[in-house]
Protein backbone atom coordinates (compact mmCIF):
# COMPACT_ATOMS: atom_id res chain seq x y z
CA UNK A 1 0.00 0.00 0.00
CA UNK A 2 1.12 3.47 -0.59
CA UNK A 3 0.34 6.32 1.69
CA UNK A 4 1.17 9.56 0.11
CA UNK A 5 2.17 11.20 3.33
CA UNK A 6 4.71 8.55 4.09
CA UNK A 7 6.65 9.01 0.92
CA UNK A 8 10.09 10.22 1.60
CA UNK A 9 10.90 13.57 0.21
CA UNK A 10 14.03 15.36 1.08
CA UNK A 11 13.24 19.05 0.96
CA UNK A 12 16.92 19.87 1.23
CA UNK A 13 17.99 17.74 -1.69
CA UNK A 14 20.20 19.44 -4.17
CA UNK A 15 18.15 20.69 -7.02
CA UNK A 16 21.11 21.11 -9.24
CA UNK A 17 22.02 24.17 -11.13
CA UNK A 18 18.87 26.21 -11.52
CA UNK A 19 20.11 27.43 -14.84
CA UNK A 20 21.52 24.13 -15.95
CA UNK A 21 18.59 22.69 -17.79
CA UNK A 22 17.20 25.81 -19.33
CA UNK A 23 19.23 26.83 -22.28
CA UNK A 24 17.33 29.94 -23.00
CA UNK A 25 18.02 32.02 -19.95
CA UNK A 26 17.81 35.56 -21.09
CA UNK A 27 17.06 34.50 -24.60
CA UNK A 28 14.57 36.28 -26.74
CA UNK A 29 13.33 33.16 -28.42
CA UNK A 30 9.69 33.35 -27.51
CA UNK A 31 9.08 37.01 -28.03
CA UNK A 32 7.72 38.80 -31.04
CA UNK A 33 9.98 41.74 -31.62
CA UNK A 34 8.86 44.86 -33.34
CA UNK A 35 11.73 47.14 -34.19
CA UNK A 36 12.26 50.36 -35.96
CA UNK A 37 15.16 51.54 -38.04
CA UNK A 38 15.94 54.92 -39.38
CA UNK A 39 16.43 55.46 -43.03
CA UNK A 40 17.37 58.64 -44.72
CA UNK A 41 15.39 61.76 -43.95
CA UNK A 42 12.40 61.12 -41.82
CA UNK A 43 11.80 57.73 -43.25
CA UNK A 44 11.74 54.64 -41.14
CA UNK A 45 11.47 50.93 -41.48
CA UNK A 46 9.63 48.59 -39.16
CA UNK A 47 10.64 44.98 -38.74
CA UNK A 48 8.62 42.22 -37.18
CA UNK A 49 10.62 39.27 -36.03
CA UNK A 50 9.77 36.07 -34.24
CA UNK A 51 6.23 35.48 -35.34
CA UNK A 52 5.11 32.04 -34.13
CA UNK A 53 5.41 29.29 -36.68
CA UNK A 54 1.74 28.51 -36.91
CA UNK A 55 1.02 31.82 -38.59
CA UNK A 56 1.39 32.28 -42.27
CA UNK A 57 3.77 35.20 -42.61
CA UNK A 58 2.81 35.79 -46.19
CA UNK A 59 -0.82 36.25 -45.36
CA UNK A 60 -0.02 38.39 -42.38
CA UNK A 61 2.18 40.57 -44.51
CA UNK A 62 -0.61 40.96 -46.98
CA UNK A 63 -3.01 41.94 -44.21
CA UNK A 64 -0.48 44.42 -42.83
CA UNK A 65 0.02 46.01 -46.17
CA UNK A 66 -3.65 46.41 -46.74
CA UNK A 67 -4.43 47.53 -43.23
CA UNK A 68 -1.63 50.01 -42.76
CA UNK A 69 -1.52 51.18 -46.36
CA UNK A 70 2.18 50.69 -46.65
CA UNK A 71 4.47 48.49 -48.61
CA UNK A 72 6.39 45.68 -47.09
CA UNK A 73 8.41 42.62 -47.79
CA UNK A 74 9.35 39.29 -46.40
CA UNK A 75 13.02 38.83 -45.61
CA UNK A 76 14.65 35.49 -45.01
CA UNK A 77 17.25 35.57 -42.31
CA UNK A 78 19.36 32.53 -41.75
CA UNK A 79 19.19 32.78 -37.98
CA UNK A 80 15.92 34.48 -37.33
CA UNK A 81 13.79 32.97 -40.02
CA UNK A 82 11.23 35.05 -41.79
CA UNK A 83 11.11 38.71 -40.92
CA UNK A 84 8.45 41.10 -42.08
CA UNK A 85 9.65 44.51 -43.14
CA UNK A 86 7.26 47.39 -43.48
CA UNK A 87 7.77 50.93 -44.63
CA UNK A 88 7.30 53.60 -42.04
CA UNK A 89 6.80 53.45 -38.34
CA UNK A 90 4.09 50.84 -37.96
CA UNK A 91 5.05 49.63 -34.51
CA UNK A 92 1.93 50.66 -32.65
CA UNK A 93 -0.29 49.50 -35.45
CA UNK A 94 1.41 46.13 -35.67
CA UNK A 95 1.14 45.48 -31.98
CA UNK A 96 -2.51 46.52 -31.98
CA UNK A 97 -3.19 44.30 -34.93
CA UNK A 98 -1.52 41.32 -33.33
CA UNK A 99 -3.25 41.82 -30.02
CA UNK A 100 -6.61 42.16 -31.69
CA UNK A 101 -6.01 38.95 -33.50
CA UNK A 102 -5.40 36.95 -30.41
CA UNK A 103 -1.71 37.15 -29.72
CA UNK A 104 -0.85 37.63 -26.11
CA UNK A 105 0.34 41.11 -25.35
CA UNK A 106 3.08 39.87 -23.07
CA UNK A 107 4.78 38.07 -25.91
CA UNK A 108 5.12 41.21 -27.96
CA UNK A 109 8.07 43.47 -27.42
CA UNK A 110 8.16 46.84 -29.04
CA UNK A 111 11.62 48.29 -29.38
CA UNK A 112 12.92 51.59 -30.49
CA UNK A 113 12.68 55.13 -29.35
Amino acid at each position, binding site marked *: MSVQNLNTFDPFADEGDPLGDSQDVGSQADYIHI*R*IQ*QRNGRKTLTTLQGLPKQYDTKKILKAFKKEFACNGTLVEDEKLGQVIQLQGDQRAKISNFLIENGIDKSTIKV*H*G*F
Partner: protein
Amino acid sequence: MASEEPLFDPSLKKRKKKTVAFTEDPLGAEADPTAPAPDTIESTTVNGDAVNLGPKTAHELMKSTGDEEGETKKEDEDYKAMFGDLKKKKKKKEIPLDLGDDSGTSTPTAAPSEGAAPAITSEDLDFSDIKKKKKSSKKKAAFDLDAFEKELNETKTKSSTAEDEDDEGDVNPNLDHLDDADLGDDPFAQADAPVGVEAGNEAWLKSDRDYTYPELLTRFYASLHAANPSLLSSSSQKRYTIAPPSIHREGNKKSIFANISDICKKMHRQPEHVIQFLFSEMGTTGSVDGAGRLVIKGRFQQKQIENVLRRYIVEYVTCKTCKSPDTLLTKENRIFFMACESCGSRRSVNAIKSGFQAQVGKRSKTKTG
Protein backbone atom coordinates in the same frame (compact mmCIF):
# COMPACT_ATOMS: atom_id res chain seq x y z
CA MET B 1 14.23 62.53 -36.71
CA ALA B 2 10.69 62.70 -35.52
CA SER B 3 8.88 59.57 -34.65
CA GLU B 4 5.20 59.12 -35.34
CA GLU B 5 4.26 59.58 -31.76
CA PRO B 6 2.83 62.93 -30.84
CA LEU B 7 5.80 65.00 -29.96
CA PHE B 8 4.17 68.00 -28.44
CA ASP B 9 2.97 66.75 -25.19
CA PRO B 10 2.57 69.60 -22.74
CA SER B 11 2.88 67.38 -19.73
CA LEU B 12 6.05 65.84 -21.00
CA LYS B 13 7.62 69.16 -21.58
CA LYS B 14 6.61 70.56 -18.31
CA ARG B 15 7.90 67.66 -16.39
CA LYS B 16 11.12 67.10 -18.16
CA LYS B 17 12.52 70.53 -18.11
CA LYS B 18 15.03 70.00 -15.40
CA THR B 19 15.56 66.42 -14.48
CA VAL B 20 14.40 63.04 -15.50
CA ALA B 21 12.69 61.80 -12.44
CA PHE B 22 12.07 58.23 -11.62
CA THR B 23 9.82 57.53 -8.77
CA GLU B 24 10.97 54.84 -6.52
CA ASP B 25 8.22 53.63 -4.32
CA PRO B 26 8.97 50.32 -2.72
CA LEU B 27 5.44 49.65 -1.67
CA GLY B 28 3.88 50.32 -5.00
CA ALA B 29 1.33 52.84 -6.05
CA GLU B 30 -1.26 51.93 -3.51
CA ALA B 31 0.96 52.19 -0.50
CA ASP B 32 -0.02 55.63 0.61
CA PRO B 33 -3.59 56.47 -0.20
CA THR B 34 -3.41 60.07 0.77
CA ALA B 35 -0.01 60.81 -0.60
CA PRO B 36 -1.33 63.06 -3.34
CA ALA B 37 -3.05 65.21 -0.80
CA PRO B 38 -0.43 67.96 -0.80
CA ASP B 39 -0.92 68.36 -4.50
CA THR B 40 -4.39 69.60 -4.01
CA ILE B 41 -3.20 72.92 -2.87
CA GLU B 42 -1.21 73.69 -5.93
CA SER B 43 -3.45 72.25 -8.53
CA THR B 44 -6.66 73.72 -7.35
CA THR B 45 -5.20 77.12 -7.84
CA VAL B 46 -3.71 76.21 -11.16
CA ASN B 47 -6.82 74.54 -12.31
CA GLY B 48 -9.25 77.22 -11.37
CA ASP B 49 -11.96 74.65 -11.57
CA ALA B 50 -15.19 75.00 -9.74
CA VAL B 51 -14.86 71.48 -8.51
CA ASN B 52 -13.76 71.72 -4.95
CA LEU B 53 -13.75 68.06 -4.17
CA GLY B 54 -10.50 67.82 -2.28
CA PRO B 55 -8.12 65.56 -4.14
CA LYS B 56 -10.29 65.48 -7.18
CA THR B 57 -8.89 68.44 -8.92
CA ALA B 58 -5.33 67.50 -8.45
CA HIS B 59 -5.97 64.05 -9.67
CA GLU B 60 -8.06 65.26 -12.48
CA LEU B 61 -5.24 67.44 -13.52
CA MET B 62 -2.82 64.64 -13.28
CA LYS B 63 -5.06 62.35 -15.13
CA SER B 64 -5.85 64.58 -18.01
CA THR B 65 -2.20 65.16 -18.62
CA GLY B 66 -1.30 61.64 -17.77
CA ASP B 67 -3.79 60.22 -20.19
CA GLU B 68 -2.28 61.84 -23.18
CA GLU B 69 1.00 60.59 -22.18
CA GLY B 70 -0.30 57.16 -21.53
CA GLU B 71 -1.48 56.89 -25.07
CA THR B 72 1.84 57.75 -26.48
CA LYS B 73 3.61 55.17 -24.44
CA LYS B 74 3.30 51.53 -25.02
CA GLU B 75 5.45 50.34 -22.24
CA ASP B 76 4.60 47.77 -19.69
CA GLU B 77 3.29 48.26 -16.23
CA ASP B 78 6.61 48.44 -14.55
CA TYR B 79 7.55 51.22 -16.76
CA LYS B 80 4.44 53.14 -16.04
CA ALA B 81 4.76 52.70 -12.36
CA MET B 82 8.08 54.42 -12.38
CA PHE B 83 7.18 57.85 -13.49
CA GLY B 84 5.61 60.49 -11.45
CA ASP B 85 2.45 61.58 -13.12
CA LEU B 86 1.68 58.23 -14.54
CA LYS B 87 1.96 56.83 -11.14
CA LYS B 88 -0.40 59.34 -9.79
CA LYS B 89 -2.90 58.44 -12.38
CA LYS B 90 -2.70 54.93 -11.16
CA LYS B 91 -3.02 55.96 -7.61
CA LYS B 92 -6.05 57.94 -8.42
CA LYS B 93 -7.74 54.88 -9.69
CA GLU B 94 -6.77 53.11 -6.55
CA ILE B 95 -8.39 55.47 -4.15
CA PRO B 96 -11.92 55.29 -5.40
CA LEU B 97 -11.67 51.56 -5.59
CA ASP B 98 -10.88 51.37 -1.94
CA LEU B 99 -13.93 53.33 -1.18
CA GLY B 100 -15.92 51.23 -3.53
CA ASP B 101 -15.38 48.36 -1.19
CA ASP B 102 -16.90 50.33 1.57
CA SER B 103 -19.85 51.63 -0.24
CA GLY B 104 -20.81 48.68 -2.32
CA THR B 105 -21.94 50.70 -5.31
CA SER B 106 -20.17 51.42 -8.51
CA THR B 107 -20.25 55.14 -7.94
CA PRO B 108 -16.63 55.68 -7.07
CA THR B 109 -15.31 54.03 -10.17
CA ALA B 110 -17.51 55.97 -12.47
CA ALA B 111 -17.18 59.35 -10.95
CA PRO B 112 -13.43 59.92 -10.77
CA SER B 113 -13.00 59.73 -14.48
CA GLU B 114 -15.76 62.17 -15.13
CA GLY B 115 -15.12 64.70 -12.44
CA ALA B 116 -17.70 67.40 -12.26
CA ALA B 117 -20.03 65.79 -14.76
CA PRO B 118 -20.09 62.12 -13.89
CA ALA B 119 -21.59 59.46 -16.04
CA ILE B 120 -24.78 57.85 -14.94
CA THR B 121 -24.24 54.19 -14.50
CA SER B 122 -27.03 52.98 -12.31
CA GLU B 123 -30.24 54.07 -10.71
CA ASP B 124 -28.61 54.91 -7.49
CA LEU B 125 -26.09 56.95 -9.26
CA ASP B 126 -28.70 59.21 -10.69
CA PHE B 127 -29.25 60.70 -7.39
CA SER B 128 -25.73 61.00 -6.31
CA ASP B 129 -24.62 62.45 -9.56
CA ILE B 130 -26.99 65.29 -9.52
CA LYS B 131 -26.21 65.87 -5.96
CA LYS B 132 -22.58 66.07 -6.68
CA LYS B 133 -22.90 68.33 -9.63
CA LYS B 134 -24.97 70.81 -7.78
CA LYS B 135 -22.75 70.62 -4.85
CA SER B 136 -19.76 71.52 -6.87
CA SER B 137 -21.43 74.44 -8.53
CA LYS B 138 -22.85 75.54 -5.22
CA LYS B 139 -26.39 75.95 -6.45
CA LYS B 140 -27.91 75.19 -3.19
CA ALA B 141 -31.54 75.81 -3.93
CA ALA B 142 -31.64 73.71 -7.02
CA PHE B 143 -29.72 71.03 -5.31
CA ASP B 144 -32.11 70.86 -2.48
CA LEU B 145 -35.10 70.58 -4.71
CA ASP B 146 -33.59 67.98 -6.90
CA ALA B 147 -32.23 65.99 -4.09
CA PHE B 148 -35.47 66.21 -2.28
CA GLU B 149 -37.46 64.96 -5.21
CA LYS B 150 -35.12 62.16 -5.90
CA GLU B 151 -35.10 61.11 -2.40
CA LEU B 152 -38.81 60.96 -2.31
CA ASN B 153 -38.88 58.91 -5.43
CA GLU B 154 -36.12 56.56 -4.75
CA THR B 155 -35.36 56.10 -1.16
CA LYS B 156 -38.51 57.19 0.63
CA THR B 157 -36.62 58.50 3.53
CA LYS B 158 -38.09 60.36 6.35
CA SER B 159 -38.77 63.94 5.56
CA SER B 160 -36.72 64.96 8.50
CA THR B 161 -33.57 63.73 6.89
CA ALA B 162 -34.33 65.70 3.78
CA GLU B 163 -34.71 68.78 5.86
CA ASP B 164 -31.57 67.85 7.53
CA GLU B 165 -29.95 68.02 4.20
CA ASP B 166 -31.54 71.31 3.46
CA ASP B 167 -30.01 72.73 6.53
CA GLU B 168 -26.60 71.41 5.92
CA GLY B 169 -26.47 71.91 2.21
CA ASP B 170 -23.03 70.97 1.13
CA VAL B 171 -22.07 68.91 4.07
CA ASN B 172 -23.14 65.54 2.91
CA PRO B 173 -21.82 63.31 5.66
CA ASN B 174 -25.18 63.94 7.24
CA LEU B 175 -26.61 61.63 4.69
CA ASP B 176 -25.45 58.93 6.94
CA HIS B 177 -28.78 59.23 8.60
CA LEU B 178 -30.39 58.01 5.45
CA ASP B 179 -31.07 54.42 4.78
CA ASP B 180 -28.74 51.92 3.25
CA ALA B 181 -29.54 52.62 -0.35
CA ASP B 182 -28.26 56.08 0.11
CA LEU B 183 -25.37 55.08 2.17
CA GLY B 184 -24.03 53.41 -0.89
CA ASP B 185 -22.55 56.44 -2.51
CA ASP B 186 -22.03 58.31 0.65
CA PRO B 187 -18.55 57.29 1.70
CA PHE B 188 -17.41 58.28 -1.70
CA ALA B 189 -18.59 61.79 -1.22
CA GLN B 190 -17.14 61.94 2.23
CA ALA B 191 -13.80 60.77 1.17
CA ASP B 192 -13.60 63.54 -1.30
CA ALA B 193 -14.22 66.18 1.23
CA PRO B 194 -12.06 65.34 4.21
CA VAL B 195 -8.76 65.30 2.43
CA GLY B 196 -8.73 69.02 2.22
CA VAL B 197 -10.26 69.36 5.63
CA GLU B 198 -7.90 70.40 8.34
CA ALA B 199 -7.92 69.03 11.80
CA GLY B 200 -10.60 70.53 13.95
CA ASN B 201 -13.37 70.86 11.41
CA GLU B 202 -14.01 67.28 10.52
CA ALA B 203 -17.45 66.59 9.20
CA TRP B 204 -18.55 64.38 12.00
CA LEU B 205 -18.08 67.04 14.62
CA LYS B 206 -21.25 68.75 13.55
CA SER B 207 -23.41 65.70 13.83
CA ASP B 208 -23.80 62.95 16.33
CA ARG B 209 -23.12 60.17 13.89
CA ASP B 210 -20.16 57.88 14.04
CA TYR B 211 -17.11 58.62 11.97
CA THR B 212 -16.37 56.19 9.20
CA TYR B 213 -13.20 54.37 8.46
CA PRO B 214 -12.18 56.37 5.37
CA GLU B 215 -12.66 59.56 7.27
CA LEU B 216 -10.48 58.43 10.07
CA LEU B 217 -7.92 57.18 7.63
CA THR B 218 -7.69 60.47 5.83
CA ARG B 219 -7.62 62.27 9.13
CA PHE B 220 -4.78 60.11 10.27
CA TYR B 221 -2.76 60.76 7.16
CA ALA B 222 -3.53 64.44 7.24
CA SER B 223 -2.32 64.82 10.78
CA LEU B 224 0.61 62.53 10.18
CA HIS B 225 1.81 64.56 7.27
CA ALA B 226 1.12 67.77 9.03
CA ALA B 227 3.20 66.66 11.98
CA ASN B 228 6.17 65.48 9.94
CA PRO B 229 6.39 66.79 6.44
CA SER B 230 9.63 64.95 5.90
CA LEU B 231 7.76 61.69 5.96
CA LEU B 232 5.58 62.90 3.17
CA SER B 233 8.39 63.74 0.86
CA SER B 234 10.25 60.55 1.53
CA SER B 235 7.31 58.23 1.25
CA SER B 236 5.69 59.43 -1.91
CA GLN B 237 8.28 61.63 -3.48
CA LYS B 238 11.42 59.67 -3.08
CA ARG B 239 12.68 59.80 -6.56
CA TYR B 240 15.49 58.47 -8.54
CA THR B 241 16.68 61.28 -10.68
CA ILE B 242 19.26 61.39 -13.36
CA ALA B 243 20.20 64.26 -15.55
CA PRO B 244 18.42 64.28 -18.87
CA PRO B 245 20.53 63.12 -21.77
CA SER B 246 21.98 66.01 -23.69
CA ILE B 247 21.71 65.37 -27.36
CA HIS B 248 23.32 67.51 -30.01
CA ARG B 249 23.34 67.12 -33.69
CA GLU B 250 26.62 66.62 -35.39
CA GLY B 251 26.30 67.40 -39.03
CA ASN B 252 23.21 66.14 -40.67
CA LYS B 253 23.08 62.50 -39.83
CA LYS B 254 24.73 62.04 -36.49
CA SER B 255 23.65 62.76 -32.97
CA ILE B 256 25.94 63.23 -30.03
CA PHE B 257 25.02 61.99 -26.61
CA ALA B 258 27.28 64.14 -24.52
CA ASN B 259 26.66 63.19 -20.91
CA ILE B 260 26.47 59.45 -21.28
CA SER B 261 29.38 58.88 -18.92
CA ASP B 262 27.70 60.93 -16.21
CA ILE B 263 24.49 59.02 -16.62
CA CYS B 264 26.28 55.70 -16.55
CA LYS B 265 28.06 56.72 -13.41
CA LYS B 266 24.80 57.68 -11.84
CA MET B 267 23.25 54.37 -12.76
CA HIS B 268 26.35 52.40 -11.76
CA ARG B 269 26.51 50.69 -15.11
CA GLN B 270 29.28 50.15 -17.57
CA PRO B 271 29.00 52.59 -20.46
CA GLU B 272 29.57 49.71 -22.86
CA HIS B 273 26.51 47.94 -21.59
CA VAL B 274 24.38 51.04 -21.88
CA ILE B 275 25.72 51.80 -25.33
CA GLN B 276 25.07 48.30 -26.48
CA PHE B 277 21.51 48.57 -25.28
CA LEU B 278 21.01 51.95 -26.91
CA PHE B 279 22.28 50.73 -30.22
CA SER B 280 20.31 47.56 -30.26
CA GLU B 281 17.13 49.32 -29.23
CA MET B 282 17.44 52.09 -31.72
CA GLY B 283 18.66 49.85 -34.46
CA THR B 284 21.65 51.95 -35.25
CA THR B 285 25.38 52.14 -34.72
CA GLY B 286 27.85 54.64 -33.48
CA SER B 287 31.06 55.21 -31.65
CA VAL B 288 32.54 56.89 -28.63
CA ASP B 289 34.64 59.92 -29.40
CA GLY B 290 37.71 61.22 -27.63
CA ALA B 291 35.82 63.21 -25.03
CA GLY B 292 33.81 60.23 -23.92
CA ARG B 293 30.76 61.30 -25.83
CA LEU B 294 28.69 58.89 -27.78
CA VAL B 295 28.22 59.54 -31.46
CA ILE B 296 25.06 57.91 -32.72
CA LYS B 297 24.34 57.46 -36.35
CA GLY B 298 20.97 58.85 -37.23
CA ARG B 299 18.94 61.77 -36.03
CA PHE B 300 17.62 61.41 -32.56
CA GLN B 301 15.93 63.77 -30.22
CA GLN B 302 16.48 64.02 -26.54
CA LYS B 303 13.05 62.67 -25.85
CA GLN B 304 13.66 59.57 -27.85
CA ILE B 305 16.94 58.81 -26.17
CA GLU B 306 15.29 59.44 -22.87
CA ASN B 307 12.62 56.89 -23.65
CA VAL B 308 15.22 54.30 -24.43
CA LEU B 309 17.12 55.15 -21.28
CA ARG B 310 13.99 54.75 -19.25
CA ARG B 311 13.52 51.34 -20.67
CA TYR B 312 17.09 50.52 -19.87
CA ILE B 313 16.56 51.59 -16.30
CA VAL B 314 13.44 49.52 -15.94
CA GLU B 315 15.13 46.52 -17.43
CA TYR B 316 18.64 46.70 -16.08
CA VAL B 317 18.81 49.15 -13.19
CA THR B 318 15.81 49.01 -10.94
CA CYS B 319 15.33 45.97 -8.80
CA LYS B 320 12.26 44.10 -9.89
CA THR B 321 11.47 43.16 -6.33
CA CYS B 322 11.84 46.36 -4.41
CA LYS B 323 12.14 48.89 -7.23
CA SER B 324 15.32 50.23 -5.78
CA PRO B 325 17.83 51.54 -8.31
CA ASP B 326 20.64 50.50 -6.02
CA THR B 327 21.72 47.42 -7.91
CA LEU B 328 24.85 45.82 -9.26
CA LEU B 329 25.18 44.13 -12.59
CA THR B 330 27.66 41.30 -12.82
CA LYS B 331 28.42 38.84 -15.53
CA GLU B 332 28.78 35.17 -14.75
CA ASN B 333 29.05 32.49 -17.38
CA ARG B 334 27.94 34.82 -20.13
CA ILE B 335 24.79 35.64 -18.22
CA PHE B 336 24.25 38.96 -16.58
CA PHE B 337 22.96 38.95 -13.03
CA MET B 338 21.49 41.90 -11.25
CA ALA B 339 21.93 41.95 -7.50
CA CYS B 340 20.00 44.41 -5.43
CA GLU B 341 21.95 46.24 -2.78
CA SER B 342 18.97 47.19 -0.68
CA CYS B 343 16.88 44.03 -0.62
CA GLY B 344 19.43 41.44 -1.58
CA SER B 345 17.51 39.88 -4.40
CA ARG B 346 19.39 38.53 -7.34
CA ARG B 347 18.07 37.75 -10.75
CA SER B 348 19.30 37.19 -14.23
CA VAL B 349 18.57 39.82 -16.82
CA ASN B 350 18.04 39.48 -20.50
CA ALA B 351 21.08 39.55 -22.64
CA ILE B 352 21.14 42.43 -25.05
CA LYS B 353 20.55 41.17 -28.52
CA SER B 354 20.23 43.37 -31.47
CA GLY B 355 17.99 41.10 -33.47
CA PHE B 356 17.25 41.55 -37.08
CA GLN B 357 18.88 44.48 -38.80
CA ALA B 358 17.40 45.43 -42.10
CA GLN B 359 19.48 46.59 -44.97
CA VAL B 360 19.47 50.37 -44.94
CA GLY B 361 21.33 52.56 -47.32
CA LYS B 362 23.36 51.60 -50.28
CA ARG B 363 24.23 48.00 -50.75
CA SER B 364 27.51 48.87 -52.34
CA LYS B 365 28.62 50.52 -49.14
CA THR B 366 28.08 47.44 -47.06
CA LYS B 367 29.85 45.30 -49.63
CA THR B 368 33.02 47.31 -49.50
CA GLY B 369 32.89 48.19 -45.83
